[in-house]
């Protein structure tokens, strides 16, 4: 039950982070070039992602559990550490924070500079929207598939991602402005902690570890990961230097 809740939360938070970035691009395209092509591109990319998750999720659940835990746990651990690394570097001033306002302004300028439509179809807006939604969404699909398959809860992970997507789209449609107040780096930090903890737990089981306390060890790993991540942020941030991302 707790494991499923954590899977839901992990997928939802990861989806929220990536969808906020995608929303910024789709909004910039929409307000400068019209809404039809950007929305078509985004919907087409989401359809591709749904097919990927629907095909790979159940297929992975059929793989022997020890092999699945080793492979998927290792991937989650590497992926989670990359998210944590980026979040800690940003929080401690060694990497610039992702600025949705600046990203929005850059996308608007690029969209204005791009050529007009030739055959009634805005290829520029269609392709940029499709590509950005697909690339950002692929990270979410990866997290949904791996978290879900290992826990035998692909549906729950997918539900978390879809919930976050719906919330971001509704809020974006209401404000029609980049969601710059979303604490993106904090969300990235939280996702990094969860992926790293799940990855450590499952990859460990995959290589034959019997964790002391069984499932309780996962909760302990989460607490420990939060603690050392905060410690690293503090230690690293003593002499920060802001550099471009």
């Amino acid at each position, binding site marked *: 039950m707790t494991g499923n809740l954590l899977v839901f939360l992990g997928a939802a938070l990861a989806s929220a982070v990536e969808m906020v970035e995608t929303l910024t691009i789709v909004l910039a395209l929409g307000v400068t070039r019209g809404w039809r092509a950007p929305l078509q591109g985004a919907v087409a990319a989401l359809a591709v992602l749904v097919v990927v998750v629907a095909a790979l999720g159940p297929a992975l659940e059929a793989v022997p559990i020890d092999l699945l835990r080793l492979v998927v746990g290792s991937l989650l*651990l590497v*992926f989670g*550490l*990359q998210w944590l690394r980026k979040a800690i570097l940003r929080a401690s001033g060694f990497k610039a924070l992702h600025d949705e306002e600046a990203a929005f302004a850059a996308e608007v300028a690029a969209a204005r500079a791009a050529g007009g439509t030739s055959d009634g179809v805005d290829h520029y807006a269609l392709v940029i929207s499709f590509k950005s939604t697909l690339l950002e969404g692929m990270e979410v699909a*990866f997290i949904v598939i791996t978290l879900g398959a290992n826990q035998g809860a692909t549906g729950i992970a997918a539900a978390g991602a879809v919930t976050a997507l719906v919330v971001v789209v509704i809020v974006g449609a209401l404000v029609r402005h980049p969601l710059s107040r979303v604490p993106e780096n904090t969300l990235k930090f939280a996702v990094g902690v969860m992926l*790293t903890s799940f990855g*450590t737990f499952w*990859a460990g089981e995959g290589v034959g570890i019997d964790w002391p306390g069984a499932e309780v060890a996962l909760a302990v790993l989460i607490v420990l990961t939060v603690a050392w991540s905060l410690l*690293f942020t503090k230690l690293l941030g003593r002499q920060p230097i802001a550099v471009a991302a």
Partner: protein
Amino acid sequence: MRRVARGVVDFVVGDDIWIAVAVLALLAATAVLVRIGGEAWWLLPAGVPAALWISLVRARRQARGSRRLS
């Protein structure tokens, strides 16, 4: 095909290949400890933060180096 493979590697490995290498080494060491019958559960919780810390220190060094050059 090569571009797709490179894209997948970039996607998983990310900004610092050290992390992926360290994780593989830690898992291999843990597997060996398990096979020889030793207590192995502590190795990942100890090694994972150490690997990340080394990666962060490398990033900090690079950031300082690029500031000196600019």
